[in-house]
Structures are given as C-alpha cells and as structure tokens.
C-alpha cells in the first residue's frame, strides 16, 4: 500500500491511498484503502491521514477519521492523536500497521506499530527525511 498526504500553499490538506490489497485474498475482499475514514481522510480543520496495514482492523477502528476526531473533539495534537490510535487503540485490538499524517500547520506524524514502514516527508522549511526501519 502506498499513500500520500499534503499541505499546499493555500493551507489546504489532501490525502490519498493506493493498494493491491493482500496476496491470495479471495471473495472480492476489500481492505481499508478505499474506505473513506478508515484508510484515508482529510479535513482542513484538523489533518490529512493515509494508512497502511491490516485493513480489517483499520476499518473496524475507523483509524483515519478517529485521528481527526480526537483532534477536533478532544483537542489532541496531531502526534498525540495518531499515537493514541496507532500505538494504543490499534495495538489493543491486535491490528498492525501505521499511518502518515499532516495537520494544517504542517506538523507531521508517521507512527507505526510494525518493525518498519517505508516513509518520508519534505517541508518547505527544507526539512526532509526518508526512513524505513523502526529505529530510524
């Protein structure tokens, strides 16, 4: 699964996710990627999120929207909200994977509960990072 979230010069957020699903799947199984709110969500008032992982858990946890909702209704920061969902709520359910997220201020979060996640970001400030492993 691949995904991207962005904040443009006009302060608008967007999110996208694209995937091939999982090997050997049957019965027209659909994961979280095309489910708005589960694998993908964007709201200028809060954040944009794209997820990757075991889709069934992401659907049941409505992961992407949940991060936005925690920011909107509970006032959590992007990092607090995405950590709560990926590293706490999802783990308790047994779901593995991660998200990338960005808020309207350009803050970035990339939490994951697996051993690695291909990920990276670039900011207009010049800050740039590309990482794969957990310890990076």
């Amino acid at each position, binding site marked *: *699964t*691949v*995904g*991207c*979230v*962005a*904040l*443009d*010069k*006009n302060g*608008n*957020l*967007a*999110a*996208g996710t*694209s*995937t*091939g*699903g*999982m*090997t*050997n*799947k*049957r019965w*027209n199984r659909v*994961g979280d*990627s*095309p*489910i*708005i709110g589960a694998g*993908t969500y*964007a*709201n*200028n008032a809060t954040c*944009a999120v794209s997820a*990757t992982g*075991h889709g*069934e858990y992401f659907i049941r946890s409505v992961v992407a929207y949940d991060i936005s909702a925690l920011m909107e209704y509970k006032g959590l920061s992007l990092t607090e909200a995405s950590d709560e969902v990926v590293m706490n709520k999802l783990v308790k359910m*047994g779901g*593995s*994977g*991660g998200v990338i997220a*960005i808020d309207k201020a*350009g803050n970035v979060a*990339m939490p*994951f509960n*697996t*051993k*690695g*996640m*291909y*990920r*990276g*970001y*670039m900011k*207009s*400030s010049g800050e*740039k990072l*590309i990482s794969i*492993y957990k310890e990076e």
Partner: protein
Amino acid sequence: QENFALVIHGGAGTITRENLSPEKEKAYQAKLDEALQAGYDELEKGKSAMDAVEKAIQVMERSELFNSGIGAVFTHEGRNELDASMMDGKTLNAGAVAGVSHIKSPIEAARAVMEKSEHVLLAGKGAEEFARLKGLEMVDSSYFFTERRWNSLQRAIKRDSIELDHSDEAPKKSSMNYSVPEDYKFG
C-alpha cells in the same frame, strides 16, 4: 501562506535490516525520494495538495517495489485487484475505486470518481466502465504483473495462507483467521 509539506508511505510490515538487502534498501530509498520530490515540486509550483498527492502516489504506482499499480499482489485467482481513494480536506469531497484490474492509475480513478461523479466509491466492472467513459488510460492486466508477486502467490497458495505487503522480505507463514503474531502481518 508559504508553509507547505508532503508526507508519503510505501507500506508497513516486518521490514528489518536483516531481511532487506543493501541494494534493495537503496532502491526503496531512491524511489521514495523520487515520489517525495514529484509531489513537492507540485506544491512548490503552487499546485493544490490534491495534485501533489496524486503525483507522488503515481510515482509509487509505477514502481514494482510497492504493492500498488505495477507490482501489486495477486488474488487467489491470480488477478490484480487494485483499490485507491482520495479526499480533499478543503471541501470534504472524496472518491474511491475498489477491485479494479485494468485502470492504469487507480489513484487517478479515485480522483475522477470524486470530481466527475456524484458518488464516493465505485467498485469492479462499474468502476472500470466509469474510468473508460471519463477517458482514463486502461491497460491489460499483464501491465501489473511482476514475477516477485507471482511467486509470493504461489507460496501463499501452497501454505493456504494470505500475505500482505512486503511478505517476501520476511517469508513467514500467515493465517487465514487474522489472529496471528505481529511478525506475520504486512501492511
């Protein structure tokens, strides 16, 4: 506002230094860099976040390294069934396609559903027919084929198991009931 930024992912799973060769690691880093730059360039030119997201994802869809577009994994029947979605934070509009096998860029199709239909999620043959009508590029399903993913399917069929992304970086058995240890899941 001149503050802009872009974030990407290429999948998660049991990805460790032990199961990823230095050559493969370099290849992943280079492709991630290319995707980031493609999206960033759009933002720098003043294009929308939607444009940037689409461009960055299309770079990864065209790479066999990731489970999307070329290099997508196979279903039990040996098909590629692709899913994609996009959402615009400004308008809260969204579009998605599920289970498509002949649309060259699923993320472009997802955006087309959002911008050129009154619907949010189109699936299977209907989604492909919609894409055709809207002039999106269609391809033979062989366009998505890679030997690496085909071999993954053969291993999975042999074990009667399912595999998520990046499983061949850590070839361990997974289970059909989803109640499996962390190491067996690859997103």
